[in-house]
């Protein structure tokens, strides 16, 4: 009776030792050496996996950082300067400060400004509409208002305003650029967020001749060039009947906004201008 117990114990112990030896060598053979810094960096990153950095997800981005041993040209739009600072610290690198950006909708062809002439009867998708026709208002470049950008946004930063039919960006935007890619017409651009969220931009991308553009939309840029002349910083260029404000050169002086005859240049989050004090009022008080 005892013999049976002893033999089975010896057999089991022998099997165990033999397996341990085999497993040890297999583990040595197939060992994967991963840089521990990848885990550290990936933990710092926000984990949104939005792809805004240009990589498939946060871990791929962390791998790229560790592999490059430098932060040049790499930035996390979601985490911004804070997260990149932490990553730099973990990697022992210095980070250059980047100006935060935000998505800007460069079209103001709302239902009132650019009334619909035909009805689009299909699924609510800009990609369909763009491949089929120029849009309900007739503007071949403007926002179609069917919300491909809203669907693409992981951060709930975009919604379509029911009154204007145009997308509105809120402060949840992290400038990941998903909407820029989703828009078949290239209406959305990433621009500097600006001090106190103040921005000046041309809210139109129509390159048709002025008269034609104006026929479809009353707030279209007609390419008159007045803004180019008035800009003291050479920030505005005119090409293909369309003005463009370079956000790196623009100093937000707002001279162009007042000059634009169609109101295509927009200013955001500025305090309302002081009305020039009427002279008649002054004379009234003196008498």
């Amino acid at each position, binding site marked *: 009776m005892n013999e049976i117990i002893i033999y089975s114990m010896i057999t089991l112990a022998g099997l165990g030792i033999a397996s341990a030896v085999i497993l040890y060598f297999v583990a040595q053979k197939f060992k994967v050496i991963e840089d521990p810094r990848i885990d550290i960096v990936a933990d710092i990153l926000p984990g949104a996996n939005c792809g805004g950095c240009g990589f498939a997800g946060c871990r791929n981005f962390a791998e790229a950082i560790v592999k490059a041993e430098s932060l040049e040209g790499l930035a996390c739009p979601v985490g911004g300067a804070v997260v990149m600072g932490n990553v730099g610290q973990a990697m022992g690198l210095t980070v250059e400060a980047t100006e935060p950006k935000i998505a800007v909708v460069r079209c103001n062809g709302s239902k009132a400004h650019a009334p619909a002439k035909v009805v689009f*009867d299909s699924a609510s998708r800009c990609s369909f509409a763009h491949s*089929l*026709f120029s849009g309900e208002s007739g503007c071949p470049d403007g926002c179609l208002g069917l919300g491909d950008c809203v669907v693409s946004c992981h951060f709930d930063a975009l919604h379509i305003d029911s009154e204007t039919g145009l997308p509105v960006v809120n402060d949840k935007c992290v400038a990941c650029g998903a909407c820029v890619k989703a828009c078949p017409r290239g209406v959305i651009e990433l621009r500097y967020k600006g001090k106190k969220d103040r921005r000046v931009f041309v809210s139109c991308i129509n390159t*048709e001749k002025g008269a034609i553009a104006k026929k479809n939309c009353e707030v279209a840029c007609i390419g008159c060039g007045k803004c180019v002349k008035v800009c003291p910083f050479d920030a505005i260029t005119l090409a293909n009947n369309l003005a463009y404000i370079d956000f790196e050169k623009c100093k937000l002086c707002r001279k162009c906004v007042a000059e634009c005859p169609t109101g295509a240049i927009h200013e955001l989050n500025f305090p309302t201008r002081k009305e020039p004090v009427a002279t008649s009022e002054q004379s009234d008080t003196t008498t």
Partner: protein
Amino acid sequence: MKTFKIGGVHPEENKLSAGKPIEVFPIPQKVYIPLSQSLGAPSKPVVKKGDVVKVGQMIAQGEGFISSNIHSSVSGTVVKVEDYPGAGGYRSPAIFIDVEGDEWEESIDRTEALNKECALSPEEIVGRLKSFGIVGLGGATFPSHVKLMVPAGKKPEFLIINGVECEPYLTSDHRLMMEHGEELMVGISILMKGLGVTKAFIGIENNKPDAIGHLSKLASSWPGIEVHPLKVKYPQGGEKQLIKALVNREVPSGKLPIEVGCVVNNVGTAFAVYEAVQKNKPLFERVVTVTGKSIPTPGNFMVRIGTLVSALLVHSGFSAEDGLKVIGGGPMMGKALTNLDVPVVKGTSGILVMPASESKRMAEQSCIRCSRCTTVCPMGLEPFQLATESERAFYELAEKDRILDCIECGSCHYTCPSGRHLLDHIRVGKAAVAKLIRARAAK
């Protein structure tokens, strides 16, 4: 009766204008002739503002291998060359001509006499089609001379003439077969000579017994030309389906019909070939069906290229009302017009007006896996799968599932009981996959 084997649908035929003879449409006061009227590169204008042109004079030259010449459809003065909105509302360059009189190029033979003898060599025929701007009039507007230039190593065996006209409502080819049958036979024999084949099959659907009878009678005196009645089934007019129906051969995926020894041409094209070769007449007018349940007097018209659709509609007693849908082409493959002032081009086979009650789409619901789209797909694809792959941007998968084989006939879309926008998704997917392949090739 012959037909293609897999898939297909049978929408209501509604051939309202089948009994209406072709009427010559009055010459308009001005025409807008777009520079992009065929597949391939747009043509380059050879006239400028102020030039006086005659009917049939070349006004734009095709550049590149797949491209075609464009000729003036009227006599008058060129006003300008400027962008003009097309059917989708996107602008593309067009030549604007103000009409004065109706003075034709002297070389054009305007007599009605039938000219049966063709003395040109095959090379000269190809050259003639190229210089006279002949393109496929079935809808795809593929330059005809390119079809006759058979690539080295391939041997054409059959010429297939497409008289199917499987699109509901359209009757322009039907009328052409009835009224210009003899010219058609000469045109077909010229195409046979150009290709060097001895057999030509004309496929006509069985809903046009008069055309089948008429052409069969004429064909009996033309050796090598046979007329075959086909069972009525959409999309039999697709060239791959027609080849399958007539000679029971299958064009391999991604290849052209010449791979199985066939070249397909439309009856309209064969007629244009006759006029170009025997009458020296370039392609500047075509038969257009104006039809629809909202049109008081549907009809078939011989229309000069560049005439506005609105003029055609007014002539047919059309009055604008809300909710109407005007389609360039047939109801299955045609595209809705965003604007009625678009010009008739070489590819315009018909103008269809849908009443408000019929122009609305069904509300979209979830896929119920009924597999009807797969059953009707004439290319043997799985439309529900392709649509989902395209929607989710799985373009590599879509490519593997042969999204590029889709001929965009719309049978899946037509048959879907849940009103899903299958073809819309597939079209977007096709464009994306084509882009993917181009990017890969560029690498």
